């Protein structure tokens, strides 16, 4: 007891004693068995205790062989009592004497067999700690120090097993999307689980558990799991809790529980020496069972966190376990094909289900708890009834089943070594068969809310299919990028889309210009064509007029010609007639009539001759006029011909410009659309950037709040601890005072007795004792 006291406490106690008693402090200390010097030393070295210092060393270095399950050399270092019992070679530690302690000699390699076997010495500081611990008297823990439980008691217990749809849909609030780790490569998916009552999928990653909304196929939260890798994920039957069992291979394993509604980690259970491969929480949320390579199923109380019992019947690694939905039974299975059903509350064995010849990789209860499905590496899927443990159905698939789950409505989803995912009814009828993985399919989960089949493979790919038609939906990742990366990506995307949008806008502008120009060209061409056609019409009218004129001229010419011909014959005839007449006249002088006739003839002849001469004279003019008209006509017709060619060229040009204008218009329309899209993309990118900026801000805020919360909680705890310590100190002091008082009383009684005896002896005879003694006695009695 005493070495456990802190020096300060002793000083206080001493001071207190000084007040209440005149007995010197040293005496009290001696009575209490305290080394005076040590207790009074101001800075006593920190105490090395088994629980705080030594067990962690043993865990790291020794417990893989010397644990409760293995006990090499019949030695278990995993708890204080068994360590004190020693091993097959007797006690391994001697209190206060490390140099005589076998354990110490082995770890320092001063004695054979050097420990740990076949390995270099454990680090010097660890050896030093062990030495100090032994020399310090093998303290188990800080003993008399008041313990304030680090872990407040949990109460998640439900009044009854809860398998019904809860009133509030179990979905997490907004959570951090900052991954704990993002790795360059991916590895096999280690666990998947879907919430029974909400579109929520949990995916195990490296040191984290990811939450996906299966409806939106969107990452909605990341729960840190610094313990390692979760090998099993489970939602409680009412969907309100999420369990992750896992850890680090050959190092540590535990189960971590989160509250789905708050996204907060609520407690941890288990302290395995290897990872946890299988775990579940009972439907009334009072029990948690876990198991792993240590071959033992341990069942804990959720309320106290204490281990209730262990199942040691399995001969190989525990690979699967599940509580029945009604909370009564617990099925556990191992790597050797062993499969048992236990009464969860009483730890009694209920059934042994014999049949599997290899690792039972998956266990799942039908929702009515009457049928258990098991899938094994031996390639078989089996259904068992729970009356007598009879096998009611067995079929083979996958060449090794890796994972299996009963859906809420009694279908069975399986996956396995062949890379396929299959959905069955209970008569082994295949309802759906999908593949697409390049490697083993290792985990499945069925989302009852969205009727989706979800599976993960050996390479880390996670795919989602519709259950009805097996249509592939999308892919999820167990390795999302960090927010910073996402923001970077979004920013890059934004700048890219900005560039894109700009260039699209420019293209649009240019296209508009080009289109306008093309339209103008087209109009111009149209105009010139119109003009040409007008000209042609004019000219065509001219030709008609000219031709008319030509006709007239030709007619004139013709008429004149014919007149001339007539005249040419008539004029000599007239002349002759006139001459004849004259002659006759001469002859017949004075024939007046004749003379008159002769004169008329002469006149007529002269007139006719004149007419002829005029005709003769005007003939070239007429002829010229005629040919000139003819020339004009032909010239105009030629012009028209040329014009027609020009027109057809102009027509072609007009068509071409129309084409150009049309395509330019189309181009413009297209580029307008592109530009609009690019603009939309830009704003979307902008949204992304904002989104991730938001998320980062959120995470920062969250972290700050969490840190504050932790600090304040620690402060509270510290205060509580301080308070409790003070109370305990007072208690100890009180006890000591009582003891001292008792001792004092006893001493006084003793004195009184002696005094009485002296008195009696005095009464009988003369004082025989030395005067000094009597003096002393009398002094004391005063």
């Amino acid at each position, binding site marked *: 007891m005493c070495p456990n006291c802190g020096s300060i406490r002793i000083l206080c106690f001493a001071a207190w004693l000084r007040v209440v008693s005149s007995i010197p402090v040293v005496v009290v200390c001696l009575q209490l068995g305290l080394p005076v010097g040590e207790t009074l030393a101001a800075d006593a070295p920190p105490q090395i205790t088994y629980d705080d210092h030594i067990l962690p060393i043993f865990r790291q270095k020794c417990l893989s062989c010397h644990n409760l399950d293995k006990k090499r050399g019949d030695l278990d270092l995993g708890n204080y009592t068994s360590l004190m019992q020693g091993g097959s070679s007797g006690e391994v530690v001697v209190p206060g004497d490390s140099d005589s302690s076998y354990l110490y000699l082995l770890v320092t390699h001063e004695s054979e067999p050097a420990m740990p076997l076949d390995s270099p010495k454990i680090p010097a500081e660890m050896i030093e700690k062990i030495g100090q611990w032994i020399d310090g008297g093998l303290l188990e823990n800080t003993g008399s120090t008041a313990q304030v439980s680090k872990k407040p008691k949990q109460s998640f217990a439900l009044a009854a097993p809860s398998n019904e749809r809860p009133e509030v849909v179990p979905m997490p609030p907004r959570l951090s999307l900052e991954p704990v780790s993002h790795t360059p490569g991916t*590895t096999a998916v280690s666990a998947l689980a879907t919430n029974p009552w909400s579109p929520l999928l949990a995916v195990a990653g490296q040191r984290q558990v990811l939450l996906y909304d299966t409806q939106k196929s969107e990452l909605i939260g990341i729960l840190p799991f610094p313990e390692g890798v979760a090998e099993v994920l489970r939602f409680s039957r009412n969907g309100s809790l999420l369990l992750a069992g896992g850890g*680090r*291979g050959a190092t540590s394993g535990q189960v971590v529980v989160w509250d789905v509604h708050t996204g907060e980690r609520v407690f941890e259970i288990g302290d395995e020496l290897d990872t946890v491969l299988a775990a579940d929480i009972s439907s009334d949320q009072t029990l948690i069972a876990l198991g792993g390579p240590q071959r033992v199923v341990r069942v804990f109380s959720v309320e106290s966190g204490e281990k209730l019992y262990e199942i040691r019947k399995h001969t190989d690694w525990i690979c699967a376990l599940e509580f029945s939905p009604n909370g009564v039974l617990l099925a556990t299975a191992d790597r050797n094909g062993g499969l048992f059903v236990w009464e969860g509350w009483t730890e009694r064995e209920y059934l042994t289900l014999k049949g599997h010849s290899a690792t039972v990789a998956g266990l799942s209860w039908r929702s009515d708890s009457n049928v258990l499905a098991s899938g094994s590496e031996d390639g078989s899927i089996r259904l068992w009834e729970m009356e007598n443990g009879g096998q009611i159905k067995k079929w083979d698939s996958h060449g090794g089943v890796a994972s299996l789950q009963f859906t809420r409505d009694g279908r069975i989803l399986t996956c396995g070594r062949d890379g396929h995912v299959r959905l069955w009814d209970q008569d082994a009828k295949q309802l759906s068969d999908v593949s697409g993985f390049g490697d*083993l399919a290792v985990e499945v989960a069925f989302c009852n809310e969205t009727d989706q089949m979800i599976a993960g493979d050996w390479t*880390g790919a996670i795919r989602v299919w519709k259950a009805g038609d097996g249509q592939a939906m999308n892919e999820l990742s167990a390795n999302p990028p960090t927010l910073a990366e996402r923001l970077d990506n979004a920013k890059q995307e934004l700048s890219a889309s900005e560039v894109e949008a700009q260039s699209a806008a420019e293209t649009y502008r240019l296209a508009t210009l080009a289109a306008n120009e093309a339209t103008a060209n087209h109009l111009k061409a149209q105009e010139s064509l119109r003009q040409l056609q007008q000209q042609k019409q004019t000219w065509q009218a001219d030709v008609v007029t000219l031709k008319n004129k030509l006709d007239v001229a030709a007619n004139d010419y013709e008429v004149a010609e014919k007149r001339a011909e007539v005249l040419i014959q008539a004029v000599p005839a007239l002349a002759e007639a006139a001459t004849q007449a004259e002659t006759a006249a001469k002859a017949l002088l004075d024939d007046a009539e004749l003379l008159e006739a002769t004169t008329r003839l002469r006149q007529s002849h002269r007139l006719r001759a004149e007419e002829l001469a005029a005709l003769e004279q005007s003939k070239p003019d007429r002829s010229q006029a005629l040919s000139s008209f003819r020339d004009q006509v032909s010239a105009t017709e030629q012009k028209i011909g040329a014009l027609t060619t020009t027109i057809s060229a102009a027509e072609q040009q007009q068509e071409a410009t129309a084409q150009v204008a049309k395509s330019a218009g189309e181009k413009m329309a297209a580029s307008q659309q592109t530009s609009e899209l690019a603009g939309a993309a830009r704003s979307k990118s902008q949204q992304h950037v904002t989104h991730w900026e938001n998320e980062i801000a959120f995470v920062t805020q969250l972290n700050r709040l969490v840190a504050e919360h932790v600090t304040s909680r620690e402060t509270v705890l510290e205060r509580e601890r301080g308070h409790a310590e003070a109370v305990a100190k007072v208690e100890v002091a009180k006890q000591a005072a009582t003891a001292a008082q008792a001792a004092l009383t006893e001493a006084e009684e003793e004195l009184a007795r002696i005094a009485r005896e002296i008195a009696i002896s005095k009464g009988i005879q003369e004082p025989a004792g030395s005067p000094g003694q009597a003096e002393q006695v009398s002094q004391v009695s005063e």
Partner: protein
Amino acid sequence: MHKALFLPAIYLVSSWLSGAAWATEAPALRALHVYPRDVQMTSSRDRQSLLVQAEYENGITRDVSTEATWVLSDPAIARIEGNVLYPLSDGTGELVVAYAGHETRIPVVARDTATSLPISFRVDVMPVFMKTGCNTGSCHGAARGKDGFRLSLFGFDPAGDYFRLTREISGRRINLAELHESLFYKKGTGQVPHTGGKRFDTESEYAKILVRWLEAGAPDDQGEVPQVTAVEIYPEHAVLDGLGANQAINVRAKYSDGTDRDVTTLAYFMSNNDNSATIDQAGLVTAQNRGESFIMVRFGTHTEGSHFITLPKDLKFQWQEVPANNYVDELMFKKFKKLCIQPSELCTDERFLRRASLDIAGVLPTVEQYEEFLADPDSHKREKLVDELLSRKEFVEMWVMKWAELLQIRTTREISYKAMLRYYNWLQERIANDVPMDQMVRELLGASGGTFTNGATNYYQNETNTLKIAENVAQVFMGMRVQCAQCHNHPFDRWTMNDYYAFASFFSQIGRKQAEDPRERIIFNSESGEVNHPIGGRQMKPKFLGGAEPDLQGKDRRVALADWLASPENPYFATNLANIVWAHFFGRGIIHEVDDVRISNPPVNKELLEALGRKFTEYQYDFKKLVRDICVSRTYQLGTQTNETNANDIRNFSHASLRRVRAEVLLDIVSYVTDTKNKFQGLPAGARAVQIANGNTSTYFLTTFGRAERGSVCSCEVKIEPNLSQALHLLNGDTVHQKIQTGNLVGKRLEEGKSSEEIVEELYIRCLTRRPTDKEKQELQVILAAEEEQKLALEDVFWGVLNAREFLFNH
């Protein structure tokens, strides 16, 4: 001759100080070896380490790698770092190694130096498991693995190992997201508790190989993977000078694609005699006590060895010339010289007479023979004796018995008494008629017909399991225990599962049917039936063990096998039989045990064994001639008394060893000296125990003294180790006492009027092939004088002699 000029002064001084072995002057350098003898580098990652060994005139060798100077004719092709060459660019050149005035040149070729080969699971990763002990039988190589993880023993199943490592428990053993979290890596490097401890450091080459493989995505090999075709160990032999002397080992593997690799860091090292030389896993041999050791390397399925001799530091040894009787002695003496051992002196004529009689014929010489032999002045009388013994029928009986053990002649559920007798008679006829061994083996293995009509067919009734027949044939006729290879590649020999099943398929077509007589079966060639490989299930084509794959179209597979087995093409047949014969006369084979021939159990005198095998073949497999060679050799005639140099030798036959007389012979000589008769099943009264046909018949005496039950072909069936029940049986049991009484030899001699002294002398000669010494005579005289009843006293003396170790042992 250049010694004075070139040896460094320091070397001379140190040699003088320590006092060289032969003389005061330092031994001259005889040769400078550079290993390997050529360098070929074929990728950017390739490298080749080298070592230089100096061999001196006195036979001592020294590792001078660090003292020698290394110069590369073309420095552009490779760089030298320590004793390792790393390629720089393509080209050829010469490495010139000089030390103490000697110079050795080796060719260096570098090509494809720009190519970096992708990492391979089989070529790169698997050797790490072997080297660091992951896949040994006591660790993950155990049949059920260790702590939940199994690797195939010494990597006989790479595909299975790849599967188990990567996909048996997905996500646990390898983690491709966080490579350094991979459990197999963390366990091996001791970062997490590991029952097998820390096997290698994170900075080691092994860890780097594993990480490189993980970085590549833990790929499986695609397509053809180069196979190791040969493994070379250097130096080929070494003679270490005293405790603490070191010699590095260099290992190179040749691959089926024509490349080679320096696998010194990846090979697993073993010494078969840690008392003489130890080797660490870095490949450094350290000399311990005087003796021989075989330093072995294992890489892939190959085991190779190098012969190391450790001599005391600065041993002074001068070989005393002794005459050699024949080639046996010549080869023996050669080995003795290497080991600096002087053989013991010749044994006395008395000793030789007793030894040869017991060994060759299983009898003791009679008093008359004794007198006659001792009196014979002929200098070749020992040879005459050997010839005489070889001509006796007892010699035949002795070897019939030995063969009956190897052929397991005994009644079983399958073999009736009659069939067993036919089998025995068949064997007896063969040996009695000097049928050559090869012919006998051919008749035996190719035997067809009824088990009554052809006795040899019973061989296939003894054992009806195809695989076991193959194992037995290999063990008896080739001296090899191939059983290991049934489930995994042989850990200490070259035999792979392929070899095993291909060999077994010679016996897959043995037909058996019932004959008219219910006790008789008919063995015939069924011409159908195959053996499948258990991994992958492919059908195995018959292939001779260590030999070719014959064309067996239309042939009886067994006949083909027998033809090959008993032919000089089979390198093991003649030497194995010679070794069996040798072991009979020395109590120990040149390869010991005689049926444990493997690379890791080399012959103590390879040349001798080969010579014996050669002779045996030359003699047309007439082993009588071989026996003669052995028995007339000086080696066989050496005394048991050791000298200073051979006191510790128990392996090299440098002196005769004490051997307890085997059960049958012991009973026979006890019966002979006591003049009594035994009755065994199926034999007339007075028959010798050696003549018992049936392995299943025995007496308490024979069983106690370790007669072979012939239940297996193992040479360990015959037990000659003394034990308490043997001693008690001789002292208190009924055999000795009763036989003395029944034979009443003493009584008869007394009736003949012989004196006690004469009778004692006869008893001594009868039993021990010598007269009593004067001291013995005097002491016996005292005892005899004290006893009134002379018969009782003399019988006590008789009893005493029979209980003497001198009687029970051949020496």
